[in-house]
């Protein structure tokens, strides 16, 4: 978009999402669970249908028309994703099921090849289980140790370079899904790079929410999920620096990833194919390409500005309700507000909200250790995307005010 988006533009954008136009429990749906999964615009749903109705076939090895079209669509999606992330080469994009698989891929290839007993893997205290458990499993396999950058009271990281001593890999979340903290990724990567530490950025909450350029960020790996950025479920990607990808051993073995196989051994293709054994999620990738087009057409800066407005309004309104404490940083934050309400447990509150058409998420948000550290049984989270409106945030505040009266009687 060349000009700034008006309210009217945003309402038009919202109309692209058929699912939003429904009632839940007799009330208009307010979908505030976007950090868990986003909704899909008509353009993405149509891309899937179009693919299956016109072009579907297996990719890469076919010389017939449908196979060529499917391959072009699939590899075209890879190009779109590469461009979207600012990759130097299209071949640096490896399609995965999502963030979780992408991180496990790095742990099982780069990790297994490079980590030895007593090497340190640096994480942060705010990691999602998907950026914690794979490293615990790797530590078990290799004897490497885990270390954590502390999270301080305002929900930011207390990073200091000394934490990098003995570290081989630093893997951290770009935007925390339970605090909303936007970590200074470029700064952290710079510090890591200065001491030769390889970095992985968990981009699950950032890839669809703000402009991301992996070269400017200076990371070595970036992982994300399509389903959180308007794309279908079951598709996501790992971006990795070609030098690193080339030296990594394969992970899954199978069709599509080999150059030559005898009964005894195989030689492997170059990245990305080396890491994409078997028939990929072709339609999923095509849908991801359509989602990328869709988001770029709106503009990621525009999306970030809109989301920030919603998040700031939510923080302000929540702060007005007695007994509610919002977690995370006071300034700039990602598109979410998670809070503790003294007068209701997150599950009661979520159930209450749902009866009013409002989709919130209550629980540990896959960050159990952080919740334990914060001594919270969980939080209630409202997470936004560009199709949400300030009106919906105001309506949420109303519902929560009523909830307080209800639970506090």
């Amino acid at each position, binding site marked *: 978009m060349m000009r700034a988006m008006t309210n009217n533009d945003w309402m038009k954008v919202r109309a692209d999402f058929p699912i939003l136009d429904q009632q839940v429990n007799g009330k208009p749906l307010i979908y505030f669970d976007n950090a868990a999964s986003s909704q899909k615009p008509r353009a993405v749903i149509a891309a899937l249908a179009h693919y299956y109705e016109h072009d579907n076939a297996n990719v890469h090895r076919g010389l017939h028309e449908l196979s060529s079209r499917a391959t072009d669509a699939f590899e075209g999606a890879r190009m779109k994703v590469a461009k979207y992330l600012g990759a130097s080469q299209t071949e640096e994009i490896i399609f995965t099921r999502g963030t979780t698989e992408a991180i496990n891929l790095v742990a099982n290839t780069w990790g297994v090849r490079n980590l030895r007993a007593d090497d340190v893997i640096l994480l942060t205290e705010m990691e999602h289980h998907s950026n914690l458990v794979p490293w615990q499993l790797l530590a078990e396999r290799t004897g490497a140790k885990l270390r954590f950058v502390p999270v301080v009271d305002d929900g930011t990281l207390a990073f200091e370079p000394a934490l990098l001593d003995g570290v081989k890999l630093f893997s951290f979340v770009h935007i925390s899904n339970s605090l909303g903290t936007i970590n200074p990724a470029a700064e952290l990567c710079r510090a890591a790079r200065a001491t030769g530490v390889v970095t992985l950025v968990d981009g699950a909450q950032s890839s669809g929410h703000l402009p991301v350029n992996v070269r400017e960020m200076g990371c070595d790996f970036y992982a994300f999920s399509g389903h959180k950025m308007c794309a279908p479920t079951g598709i996501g990607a790992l971006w990795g620096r070609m030098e690193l990808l080339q030296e990594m051993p394969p992970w899954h073995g199978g069709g599509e990833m080999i150059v030559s196989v005898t009964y005894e051994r195989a030689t492997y293709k170059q990245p990305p194919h080396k890491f994409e054994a078997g028939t990929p999620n072709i339609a999923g990738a095509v849908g991801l390409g359509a989602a990328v087009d869709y988001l770029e057409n709106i503009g990621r800066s525009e999306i970030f500005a809109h989301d920030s407005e919603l998040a700031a309004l939510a923080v302000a309104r929540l702060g007005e309700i007695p007994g509610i404490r919002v977690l995370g940083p006071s300034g700039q934050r990602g598109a979410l507000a998670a809070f503790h309400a003294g007068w209701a*447990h997150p599950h009661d509150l979520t159930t209450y909200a749902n009866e009013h058409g409002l989709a919130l998420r209550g629980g540990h948000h896959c960050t159990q250790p952080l919740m334990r550290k914060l001594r919270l049984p969980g939080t209630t989270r409202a997470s936004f995307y560009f199709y949400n409106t300030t009106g919906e945030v105001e309506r949420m505040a109303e519902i929560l005010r009523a909830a307080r009266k209800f*639970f506090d009687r």
Partner: protein
Amino acid sequence: MNDELEELYQQVILDHSKRPRNFGKLPDAIHVHGDNPSCGDEIRLDVKFGPDGSVADMKFTGTGCAISQASASLMTLKLKGKPRAEAERLMHNFHTLVTSDTEPDTKGLGDLVLLRGVRKFPQRVKCAMLAWRAFEQALGEGGAVTTEGE
């Protein structure tokens, strides 16, 4: 106001969730631990059985939503002093009460019948059952328990 919510969170239930009865620990009792990992609800139930197998004493601690806390509190009130067979009967009937469309024999359930509203909220059934699963475990003497599968 929403009727189903009113039915789910009746005054008595909110009251028990805020001021749970028999909250605490029992030394020399059977301790069982129960949790719903995806919720984060946790309970520790301490039970003392009499020589005849009756429920001599019972306390619980834990954290969780109003439903799980109230259910635990009400359960301890109801089961304390009951013969084993009667406790098992109540457990069975309570399970029917919160999961089934058919009305169970509610004799002896007392205020526990107020949890009937959970039926309309299938995902909250595991909250209502958490303490009861722990009790079931205690009947089988000790061990951890989860109601995640409900």
